[in-house]
């Protein structure tokens, strides 16, 4: 199935390249938008993995929610064109060295492992299954997430709102 491969490589390329831009872009807005691309790429990969519903959620939540938040953050906190993007915490070199080593180990581990696989037919339509699980077995998690969102909301509000002096 040639096409599958091509599409995969396409999305993979989009994802990774844009991700590289995200972490290196001089202009923060560029970074933000390449992040958008990354999310698209990832959702594409989801589709390839047969997680259609998740792909949609990915687009909606990330692109529709998180990214916008980030952009707001950018707007509120930054002059768009600020050149200095590298953190002065330390030289870049050691970071790269360390992270490269880390990435190498990670890669080695991930690729050299024989991952578990078992015979179990996956449903072709995921949304129903997910919904069912969500309100049955994982109802606890569902509720928990609800509370979590509430807390996050309150927390964010209480911190971000400018209190009256």
């Amino acid at each position, binding site marked *: 199935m040639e096409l599958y491969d091509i599409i995969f490589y396409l999305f993979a390329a989009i994802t990774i390249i844009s991700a590289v831009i995200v972490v290196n872009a001089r202009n923060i807005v560029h970074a933000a938008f390449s992040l958008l691309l990354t999310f698209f790429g990832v959702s594409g990969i989801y589709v390839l993995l047969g997680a259609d519903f998740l792909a949609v959620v990915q687009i909606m939540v990330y692109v529709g929610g998180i990214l916008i938040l980030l952009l707001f953050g950018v707007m509120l906190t930054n002059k768009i064109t600020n050149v200095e993007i590298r953190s002065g915490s330390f030289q870049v070199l050691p970071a790269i060295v360390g992270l490269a080593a880390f990435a190498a*180990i*990670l890669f*080695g*581990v*991930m690729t*050299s*492992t*024989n*991952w*578990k*696989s*078992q015979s179990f037919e996956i449903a072709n339509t995921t949304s129903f299954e997910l919904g069912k*699980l969500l309100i*049955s*077995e*994982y*109802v*606890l*998690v569902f*509720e*928990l*997430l609800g*509370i*979590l969102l*509430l*807390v*996050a909301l*309150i*927390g*964010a*509000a*209480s*911190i971000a709102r400018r*209190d009256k002096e």
Partner: protein
Amino acid sequence: MFENLLTDISLILPEVIVSVTLLLLVLVDLIFNKDKSIIPFVGLIGLFFALYFAINGLNINSTAFVVSAANNDYGLLTIDSFGSYFKVIILITSILIILFAKNSLEIKNVSERSGEFYTLIFGMILGMMFMISASDLIMIYLSVELLSLSSYVLAGFTKLRDRDTEASLKYLVYGAASSGIMLFGISIIYGLTGNTNLFIINDVFKSTSINVLAYTFSIILIFTGIGFKISAVPFHFWTPDVYEGAPISVTAFLSVASKAAGFALLIRFFKTTFLLKEVSGSWILLEGFDWQSFLIIISILTMTLGNFAALWQDNVKRMLAYSSIAHAGYMLLGIAVLSDQGLLAVMIYFLVYLLMNIGAFYIVMVISNQINSENLNDYNKLGYASPFLGVSLTVFLISLTGLPPTAGFISKLYIFISLIDANMIFVAVIAVLNSVVSLYYYIRILKHMFINESENEVPQLKVAANEIVFILILLVPTLVLGIYFSPLVDFAQNCLAILVN
């Protein structure tokens, strides 16, 4: 599917009550937006209920929220007396912390937001309680996140000084990164076993052979997340900064409760996941990952670093932060013994640690309320300004050092007992030497309070009645348990049961 939902809920009544109280608080906050002074009481009532049910549940052992996909009867949560014990600790701590916060000037200054404050505190409590009983990696991750998110905010809650804002940012970045790493580790485990339920994972590990590289690596990644919570070296870096920056009541809460939750999580995680079999109280773990030496390395690093770094601190809060790191080291030793005896030691330790640490923090808070400083040099001669505070702080610090006749001695004693019983003599020697070092900085505080001459005149300290009561509540047990510790140990001994395969 739903038929056992009610039983499941009945098993997690404390959690339920806490979450209900949380929602209640939100409402109360909206309704009484004029006078918010009743909010803490609402919280207290909720907590007392929760505590009541937690104590009731002390001897229940079962699983809850079974995931049928795993086609067996392991659930997201495991309710056992071990968990309930820690829940009790968490709840007691929370009650104390709420009383604590009520008297804390920092919190009073932002009273108009106290609704949010307590809501977030409850968010933390809820997170901790789920951490304690979670037996599913996803559950673990989510509860950790719940705890973290609330505490990020709380660390910077009072936007009064630069330092707490900064604390919250650091906490956030650090926490986000390490929880991300943890999540990745979880995903690897998921890949290896096809499941996230600790019991099933345990089965898989027992039955099939696992690629040891991925296995080890994922464990370390997960431990990064847990280590971040219990601030074990080398994952502790956030601790001093955040502890120093955060409001003192939050610091106290983090240093006791979230640490306790982290330990409970750690213990349950590795005991449930990696236990091969249990022989007369000592745990035989699976091959492949040498938990013992791993924990010993971590703990020795932790206590040594904690103690030696504390030597240099001039800010009392920061010093206590390092001291709490050191204590985490001792407790990790208790775990490293890999036996119920070590577990017992850790559980005793936590109960005692709760008393003495909150006590110390509380007094620091009372003092900083009045002299508005946590710097050691401003403590000169304060012991005379208020002998009561001086003496009680002395007792707490001596207990933290671990000298008789205080409860601190008992907790250390049990750690050493478990170590020597396990023939880990070398480690024990390092540990005792560490406690000698620790004496030096604890005594430093006393030195400033009683011995050093203060260049500017000594400020007057007024101690309110309720403060005295609060301190006594912590002080008396610290002394009594030091002299007569049977009840303490008995209580802990009855809660050793951890539900495993």
